[in-house]
């Protein structure tokens, strides 16, 4: 059920037609990499054929999910009880009973840190490894000032090592969201190609709670349905009309993007990937009929089809009490009510089913799943009975693709405020993903990415 159009992106700048064209030109398709030794790129078969980054935008509370502190003072502990899991030494909160029962499939890192307390910068750092030298979103930065997203790196690497068997013309990096991910102020600049350019941005699809898949960036071709795409004459006619409206510079970029998107959309094989009705009802039900649940299912299908990097974004608007804002896990107020009713149980359901589904299909062994946000939330409950941003210590969940499951890596201190062991940095998160996906340290040196302080997380692999 792939359709086009009928989506309005909203960010703090608003969306003009021109800016839309620029966004469209950002569609990816991993261009070749000049100047890199192909022998370096030709790595041995990776443990992780694909990476799924389940991105919990907004900053989920570590104390209320994967790092409960039942002995902490009342002002820190929160109201949710700690429960045992199948993993010795690992407790999670009562909001995650299904994950507790399937903890043999994953490991938990409890000593993640970030370098910024704002969503946009922290998100960009979390997805690229570093803050942009010019200060990123809070400074005079732009998307081009960030290092490339981990997914852009993997997609570029794989594009040079593509196997002929990878016949379906799918992009190397897909991000599943209704629009640019970020917060109520604006998007994360680190969402894509960064210093490598928009040609390395992710291909964005949105997936509704009903499993309807669409490409927000192709809204300009409003009214163009999947069926009508088969009519090339009609498509060309619309393109001509668009060409007359757009200036040549923008259109040249967009034309190439469009042709690739057109090929993708009109490919029978690709269409099958996006058609969630091909799944049986029990599977679709199991993931849950939320945009997050169905996006995770679509992510699994993309991995199954061979897409190297899929980012499944929480939300958008799973829980929105605030209209037209995508706060995700940013529960500054009513944290405990929202966590109890929606965030905790929905994550528990979808993530546990995703891991189980991948496992039963024999895909977990070759698919690295990492679930995390840009930071955690304040261990100390704030003055209005909720939790604020906390980047000094938080969690990540890892499974499959070469990860040793059933482990707890790192520790936080008694109240969950700081790592009690070596901190795990965003660059280490990226290095671990890429190393397991076959982008070796030598390749990363060649690509000039993830070098400063970047190493694989000890004990996880």
């Amino acid at each position: 059920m792939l359709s086009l159009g009928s989506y309005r992106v909203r960010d703090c700048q608003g969306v003009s037609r021109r800016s839309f064209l620029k966004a469209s030109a950002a569609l990816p398709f991993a261009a070749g990499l000049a100047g890199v030794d192909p022998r370096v790129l030709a790595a041995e078969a990776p443990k992780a054929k694909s990476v799924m980054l389940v991105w919990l935008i907004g900053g989920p509370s570590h104390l209320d999910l994967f790092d409960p502190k039942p002995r902490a003072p009342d002002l820190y502990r929160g109201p949710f009880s700690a429960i045992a899991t199948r993993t010795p030494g690992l407790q999670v909160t009562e909001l995650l009973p299904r994950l507790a029962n399937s903890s043999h499939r994953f490991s938990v890192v409890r000593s993640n840190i970030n370098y910024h307390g704002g969503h946009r910068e922290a998100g960009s750092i979390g997805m690229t490894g570093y803050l942009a030298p010019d200060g990123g979103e809070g400074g005079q930065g732009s998307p081009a000032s960030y290092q490339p997203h981990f997914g852009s790196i993997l997609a570029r690497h794989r594009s040079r090592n593509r196997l002929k068997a990878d016949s379906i013309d799918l992009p190397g990096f897909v991000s599943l969201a209704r629009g640019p991910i970020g917060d109520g102020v604006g998007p994360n600049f680190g969402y894509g190609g960064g210093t490598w350019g928009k040609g390395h941005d992710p291909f964005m699809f949105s997936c509704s709670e009903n499993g309807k898949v669409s490409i927000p960036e192709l809204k300009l071709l409003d009214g163009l349905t999947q069926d009508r795409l088969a009519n090339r004459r009609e498509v060309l006619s619309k393109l001509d009309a668009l060409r007359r409206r757009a200036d040549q510079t923008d259109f040249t970029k967009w034309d190439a993007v469009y042709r690739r998107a057109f090929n993708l959309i009109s490919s029978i094989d690709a269409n099958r990937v996006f058609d969630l009705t091909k799944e049986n009802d029990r599977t679709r039900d199991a993931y849950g009929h939320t945009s997050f649940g169905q996006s995770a299912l679509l992510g699994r299908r993309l991995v199954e089809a061979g897409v190297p990097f899929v980012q499944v974004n929480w939300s958008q608007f799973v829980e929105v009490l605030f209209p037209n804002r995508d706060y995700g896990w940013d529960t500054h107020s009513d944290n405990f009510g929202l966590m109890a009713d929606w965030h905790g149980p929905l994550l528990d359901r979808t993530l546990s089913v995703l891991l189980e589904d991948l496992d039963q299909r024999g895909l977990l062994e070759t698919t690295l799943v990492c679930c995390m946000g840009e930071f955690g939330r304040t261990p100390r409950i704030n003055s209005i009975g909720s939790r604020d941003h906390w980047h000094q210590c938080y969690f990540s969940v890892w499974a499959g693709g070469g990860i040793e499951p059933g482990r707890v890596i790192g520790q936080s201190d008694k109240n969950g405020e700081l790592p009690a062991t070596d901190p795990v940095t965003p660059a280490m998160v990226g290095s671990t993903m890429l190393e397991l996906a076959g982008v070796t340290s030598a390749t990363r040196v060649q690509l000039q990415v993830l070098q400063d302080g970047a190493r694989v997380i000890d004990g996880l692999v």
Partner: protein
Amino acid sequence: MTRGQILLLSCLSLVGPARQFATAAEPQRLTRDGQLKFSPVFIDQGRRVVYSAHNQPQRVSIIRLDLASGKNTVHYPAGSDSQFDIAFSADRKIECFARSGGIRQLSLVIRHTATKQEYLFHPPGALRSTVRTPRFTPDGKRIVLTLNAPGGQQIVSLDLQGKDLRKLTASNGINGWPAISPDGQTIVFSSSRKGPLDLWLMDADGSNQRPFAGSPRRDLYPAWSPDGKRIAFTSARDGNQEIYVIDRDGTNLRRLTHHKERDMFPVWHPDGRRLLTIAERGGRFDFYLWDVKATLAATR
């Protein structure tokens, strides 16, 4: 007990609920849209349910469901804000609900339908202060609600113009989800002041706060039966979020629902015999109406 006896008991416990439900009064499923929905209330002698739903991708709206026709109507069609957690005074002359226009603060709107006057309560303190779960007192003179504001998450009451704020709780931990007994004398609520979220009671003025029912897991959303003799609530005490019913004196705790998915937001039908819940089934969220007596008898 021998290993064989243990195995037999284990097998019986696995097949037990399914066998029992085969003879039980099955709940009546009232909706099939599957949308995320919450905070239902009955109006018009049980002929309609008004609730909050994610009926649009970027908003929450208040919806009125006519049970006879199955027709859904947006309760307040105008406006681009999110509206939810509606409550009605007993005489239906006043409605109140939480509203957000996009900023983090959730305000309480008190709408006097007869005079068309509207009063706004903006929570004190930080911009992120919020209101949730408002309830009218049975005499219709005050509104009790959950307030996230400086001082923590507490239960307060307001007059019908959103003024005269009175703090009913001021404890450590999290307090919320208040429900007022039909005689107006007692409020049942959830509180984590002793650790997990347990049910507590207090007098209507906030005095005499005492524990009522608890478990190591969260107990939430208490709802008084119309005769004031029983309280339904959700609890995760058996691992999953289910509906329980307990007598007013704290005895006779019974589990009403038995499903691997969640059962939430119980409200009593005005007839006192039936209970409305929002059940997660097949990853969707719909209303189910339970005959309490028949269901409890079947699962005994």
